[in-house]
């Protein structure tokens, strides 16, 4: 019997020496562990492996190396089973077996040995007999020790399936993912791992290219979801992906990002609702989640199920429609959200409120979101407070205080009414010298010692506040008093508003901070404010100071009397100020708080004459004032529905505007920057540091700039209103400075989605602008060029002009007898025949009331030339230059000149020529007409060029603009047509015609499901044309696209259209068509 090691060494001598070394090492370690027979069996197994095939020695080497470690964990019997499994792998690939042996010691820490075959088998399943698959399988064994602690073997199968499926597409990708998997799994919570892999399998089978992204970003995305809902979300994504294929993974990403924006507690319900949609449409299910954040901004979470149900119903009848619904691209969807939503958005009601305020104030007041005022940087900083700067009313962008829409609207109404009332009842008309009705005079002959003297004041309000040393206190009191006056006026004048207003007043009262915490003076102001909200309310006030509070309340009550003016508010402010100012702002300790009401009407005449008030406290009452340490004074918290009140600033703005316009009663005094700056510094209405951070000087400068800018803008607006529409400045006022660059006006239109059978709400933005002015020459030249045609069309059109009156005969009543009828009648009567007594005629006036809009396609394709010039024909043989270069040169020059005069014509040129002819003809007939061009790119940017507007007079400007008609970009016809409809509707003419002149089918970026789809654009255009018809207009499409028949037939199903075969006949054809259309 040979010694085992020796025998084995001999056997191994055929292999590289490293194998022997491995064996020796292992043998040394094992000789004490195994019995000699076991040792022999062990060694023989190794030799068997090594001898199995060419490279199997490497596996054997791993086998030897792994053995000591393995035998620490396993009995020899188990060890042999392990070896057998490895042996089996050698059958497939020695490299695989090597990896198996190598990974085993660490992997088996996480597996029972009975699982080892299963584990090995999973690895083997990746091996497809190729080199790449072999290394992938080997990699499997390599990563196993890192994966297995995170994933039980049965779930490991999921990973293998996923990798296997990826390997079918790309081994590189599969290998990369496999490498990533330990890290990926680690990021996931244990229960989420299997669902993650399951969804991963779906991704790899539906969109394998996304797998890497999924591995990289998936765990992070899953984290957006509520921990307990993650598995559910993954399962949902998987179900959807199975249905929607490649879109599955992008949807997963977007949906999880959407979920991140939603409160986590809502995830469960969200997913439940989404799951309810999956059976009908996976897309809808995912779109539902994607849209949820937006929807939840407008709906309360409780309303979400109703929204989902509404969508599901639509989904049931039309999947496309339902999907558009959940994509928020459907008008029905908008309507439903609007109906479910209780909040009110300013955007939707601003026009209504504007007219309401206009009615109330009788001035052209504008209504904007408060944000727009803060953006101007002229002193207002609160984006959610209603306010006014004298010409416009600013309101918060949304109101959602209450659960009912009507109530929220009522809030807006109270806001708007209060601000409108400030304008209506003259809060800003304060005049320093004018006496009030109730109190004597706001003016103070003797300024408070220490206060500015106010002689230099720019505005009356400034002058008034200058009289107070504590400007802030004065401002606070004035605000309370004036708001009381306004509220009282509103309640008196507008009985209908009382209820919602009282409700807001009550709500405001509930939110007040407790009085007990405030120092006395501040508490007095606070109490005054409370009394201003409800005059009957019980006030909380220390017993010993009742008398102190009594007088202010009496004064405040007086301001509620009929006939109170803003000057009365001023006077009341003065009295109150003097009274309250004497009260030290100290903490009240051990006060005996009790209830008090404002005193019943005592007839005490509050006389605020120069001698009446005087300084300090009135003589009649010397209150027992509390003592203590003076506390800093804080203004009371603002009242929401009253909003910001900045009378000083408003007066300043108004003054600046008036001065700039040279109006106002005072001779214009140029305000100096210093004056403004001074005002700015002392006014309590402007807080520069709140407006912007940084250097005070810089901020002040910026504020002044903004202020002047605001004034300038107001001036320009006023100027434009006088001139008429912007951009139509006629020649004679050109000297009034550089015209402003025209800001395109934006209009929003829905777009028809034929798949969803619904409109996409406010989908397209049409930007209306005037074409710039070009050369007038062009127009004149065209006329000369086509002189004959012009004359001809004009003649034809003149015939169109109706006779003023047409005689209508055989009427029962009319202007006069129709003699023929009378004779006939007499004859019949004589013959005793039945006689007809319709013997009159009447001249009826025939009116021609036609408006027409021409819409020219200015898409890039109109750039195409239609008549190629003859190739430079050499001088005809008849020409003989006699080799005289001068003759040739002059010929050549002539030819060049001619060419430049008549360049090759493009489609757009013919459109223009046709337009010229038509305009010329239309001028003779007197129809209202407009000429427009359109182009653009994408739904946000549909350019609508005005060449001649409906109500614009034909002028040189129009001629010049026509010259600038040139090819631009795409053709999104729908919105352009809709805008034309709007234009036509505005004319109010009886007969309205819309002529669309194009060179091809509608197409634009995003005008269809993808680049090649034509259906969508055609359907939308068709719907736009149908809308025109519904409005009683006659649409007509004219195209020069020879292939036009096929789509025009569909687009203009039962409407007029024509394909102009011979393009060059267009200028001749268009007027003819026009006559036909209008007759």
């Amino acid at each position: 019997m040979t010694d085992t090691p020796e025998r084995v060494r001999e056997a191994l001598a055929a292999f590289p020496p490293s194998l022997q070394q491995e064996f020796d090492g292992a043998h040394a370690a094992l000789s004490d562990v195994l019995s000699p027979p076991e040792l022999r069996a062990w060694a023989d197994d190794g030799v068997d492996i090594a001898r199995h095939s060419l490279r199997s020695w490497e596996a054997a080497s791993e086998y030897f190396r792994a053995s000591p470690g393995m035998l620490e964990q396993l009995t020899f019997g188990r060890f042999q089973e392990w070896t057998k499994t490895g042996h089996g792998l050698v059958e497939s690939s020695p490299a695989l077996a090597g990896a198996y042996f190598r990974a085993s010691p660490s992997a088996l820490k996480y597996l029972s040995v009975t699982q080892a075959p299963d584990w090995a088998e999973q690895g083997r399943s990746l091996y497809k007999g190729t080199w790449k698959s072999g290394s992938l399988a080997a990699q499997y064994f390599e990563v196993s020790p890192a994966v297995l602690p995170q994933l039980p073997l049965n779930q490991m199968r999921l990973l293998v399936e996923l990798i296997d499926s990826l390997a079918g597409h790309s081994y590189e990708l599969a290998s990369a993912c496999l490498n990533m998997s330990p890290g990926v799994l680690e990021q996931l919570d244990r229960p989420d791992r299997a669902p993650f892999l399951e969804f991963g399998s779906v991704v790899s089978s539906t969109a394998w290219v996304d797998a890497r992204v999924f591995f990289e970003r998936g765990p992070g995305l899953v984290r957006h979801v509520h921990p307990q809902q993650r598995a559910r979300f993954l399962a949902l994504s998987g179900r959807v992906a199975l249905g929607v294929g490649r879109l599955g993974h992008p949807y997963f990403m977007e949906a999880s990002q959407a979920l991140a924006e939603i409160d986590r507690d809502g995830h469960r319900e969200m997913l439940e609702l989404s799951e309810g949609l999956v059976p009908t449409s996976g897309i809808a299910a995912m779109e539902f989640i994607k849209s949820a954040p937006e929807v939840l901004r407008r709906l309360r979470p409780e309303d979400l199920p109703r929204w989902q149900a509404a969508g599901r119903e639509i989904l049931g009848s039309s999947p496309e429609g339902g999907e558009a619904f959940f994509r928020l691209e459907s008008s029905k969807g908008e309507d439903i959200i609007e109906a479910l939503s209780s909040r009110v958005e300013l955007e939707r009601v601003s026009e209504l409120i504007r007219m309401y305020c206009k009615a109330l104030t009788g001035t052209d007041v504008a209504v904007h979101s408060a944000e727009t005022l803060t953006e101007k940087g002229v002193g207002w900083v609160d984006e959610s407070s209603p306010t006014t700067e004298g010409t416009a009313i600013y309101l918060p962008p949304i109101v959602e205080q209450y659960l009912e829409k009507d109530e929220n609207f009522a809030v807006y109404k109270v806001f708007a009414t209060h601000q409108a009332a400030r304008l209506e009842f003259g809060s800003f008309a304060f005049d320093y010298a004018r006496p009030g009705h109730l109190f004597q005079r706001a003016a103070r002959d003797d300024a408070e010692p220490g206060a500015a003297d106010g002689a230099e004041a720019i505005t009356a309000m400034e002058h008034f506040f200058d009289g107070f040393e504590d400007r802030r206190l004065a401002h606070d009191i004035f605000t309370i008093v004036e708001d009381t006056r306004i509220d009282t006026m509103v309640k008196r004048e507008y009985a209908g508003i009382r209820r919602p207003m009282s409700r807001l007043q009550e709500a405001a009262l509930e939110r007040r901070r407790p009085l007990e915490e405030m120092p006395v003076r501040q508490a007095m102001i606070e109490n005054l404010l409370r009394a201003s909200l409800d005059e009957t309310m019980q006030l909380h006030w220390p017993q010993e100071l009742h008398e102190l509070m009594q007088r202010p309340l009496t004064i405040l009550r007086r301001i509620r009397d009929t006939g109170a003016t803003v000057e009365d508010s001023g006077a009341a402010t003065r009295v109150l100020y003097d009274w309250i100012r004497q009260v030290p702002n100290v903490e009240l300790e051990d006060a005996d708080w009790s209830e008090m009401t404002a005193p019943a009407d005592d007839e005490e005449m509050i006389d605020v004459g120069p001698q009446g008030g005087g300084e300090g406290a009135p003589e009649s009452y010397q209150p027992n004032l509390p003592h203590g340490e003076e506390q800093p004074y804080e203004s009371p918290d603002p009242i929401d529905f009253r909003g910001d009140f900045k009378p000083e600033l408003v007066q300043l703005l108004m003054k600046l505007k008036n001065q700039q316009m040279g109006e106002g009663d005072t001779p214009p005094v140029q305000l100096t920057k210093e004056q403004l700056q001074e005002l700015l510094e002392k006014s309590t209405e402007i807080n520069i540091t709140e407006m912007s951070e940084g250097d005070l000087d810089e901020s002040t400068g910026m504020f002044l700039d903004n202020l002047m800018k605001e004034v300038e803008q107001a001036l320009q607006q006023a100027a434009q209103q006088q001139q008429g529409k912007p951009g139509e400045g006629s020649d004679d006022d050109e000297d009034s400075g550089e015209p402003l660059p025209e800001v395109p006006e934006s209009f929003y239109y829905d777009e028809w989605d034929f798949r969803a059978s619904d409109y996409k709400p406010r989908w397209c933005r049409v930007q209306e602008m005037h074409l710039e002015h070009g050369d007038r020459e062009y127009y004149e030249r065209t006329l000369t060029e086509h002189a004959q045609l012009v004359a001809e069309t004009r003649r034809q059109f003149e015939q169109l002009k109706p006779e003023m009156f047409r005689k209508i005969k055989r009427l029962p009543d009319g202007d006069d007898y129709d003699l023929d009828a009378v004779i006939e009648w007499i004859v019949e009567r004589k013959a005793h025949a039945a006689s007809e007594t319709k013997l009159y005629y009447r001249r009826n006036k025939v009116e021609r009331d036609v408006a027409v809009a021409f819409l020219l396609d200015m898409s890039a394709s109109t750039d195409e030339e239609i008549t190629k010039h003859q190739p430079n024909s050499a001088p005809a043989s008849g020409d003989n230059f006699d080799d005289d270069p001068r003759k040739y040169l002059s010929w050549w020059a002539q030819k060049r000149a001619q060419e430049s005069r008549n360049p090759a014509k493009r489609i757009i040129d013919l459109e223009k020529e046709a337009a010229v002819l038509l305009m010329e003809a239309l001028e003779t007939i007197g129809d209202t007409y407009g000429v427009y061009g359109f182009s653009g790119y994408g739904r946000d940017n549909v350019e609508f060029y005005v060449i001649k507007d409906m109500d614009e007079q034909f002028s040189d400007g129009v001629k010049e603009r026509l010259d600038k008609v040139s090819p631009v970009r795409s053709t999104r016809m729908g919105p352009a047509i809709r805008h034309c409809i709007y234009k036509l509707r505005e004319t109010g003419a009886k007969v309205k015609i819309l002529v669309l002149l194009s060179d091809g089918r509608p197409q634009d970026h995003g005008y269809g499901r993808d680049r090649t789809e034509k259906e969508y654009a055609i359907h939308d255009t068709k719907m736009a044309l149908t809308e025109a018809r519904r409005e009683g207009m006659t649409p007509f499409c004219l195209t020069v696209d020879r292939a036009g028949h096929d789509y025009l037939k569909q687009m203009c199903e039962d409407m007029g259209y024509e394909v102009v075969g011979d393009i060059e006949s267009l200028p001749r054809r268009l007027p003819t068509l026009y006559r036909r259309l209008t007759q």
Partner: protein
Amino acid sequence: MTSAADGTVAQYQSWEVEEFRALEEPYYVPVSDEVELFRSAWESKVPVLLKGPTGCGKTRFVEYMAYHLNRPTFVERDGEQVIEEESNLPLVTVACHEDLTASDLVGRYLLEGEETVWIDGPLTRAVKAGAICYLDEVVEARKDTTVLIHPLTDHRRILPIEKKSQLLQARDGFLLVISFNPGYQSALKDLKQSTRQRFISIEFDYPPRETEAAIVAHESGVDMDVATNLAKMAEKVRNLREHGLSEGASTRLLIYAGKLMQRGITPRRACQVSVAWALTDDRDVQRSIEEVISSIFE
């Protein structure tokens, strides 16, 4: 133009067109000096043009004046002239429409049996009777009517009856009054200068709040508080003129609203149907008006 049936007792009242006169004093509150102006114009045979928005009391004013201007009345009946006692002026009102022609005003031949009979038109009858002829919304009528208006309104005071080759001298007391609403007529339908300059022009506008309230209270029977609120509301709505609204809420509409309220319709509803919906079909403008209404009425 049938003549009143003689001898039959009718359930309805009917008058010859030139015999119609107000039996009771029409209610009219003068806003300014229009009464004196009109009286002086009538006395000096100067035709009058009344300008102003609809429903502000132009027609009522003419009725009021007709009632207060006195003279002996002659009425042509069955070819004979009947002299009646001195009384107020008859008033012939013609609402002009776009198909109103000169022959509608002057008269025409009608067939009767196998003969033609001339029938005077309302203007002819007013000229003969010496009545006030009030052509309401005169610009609406066809242009050929100016042919009649011109000779009647200058010193001649003559009505040419073309078909009968007659010239008719207007009787004392005859006064042509036309009304015209500059607000909503388009530029096309402006009065020609040659026509305009034959009239003195009295401008009407909605009365001030207190006056209007008094009128509404009188006409509809609502109390002054409600009437004041109605007038206030109208004032606000009139601010919306030129704003989707071609005309402001007329006093007439306020009276309607008041009458409905008297019958127990809630103020908001009454104003909605008689003001908001009556004024416009534009939903947005209606909403705005309704908001004004709901602010003023509880």
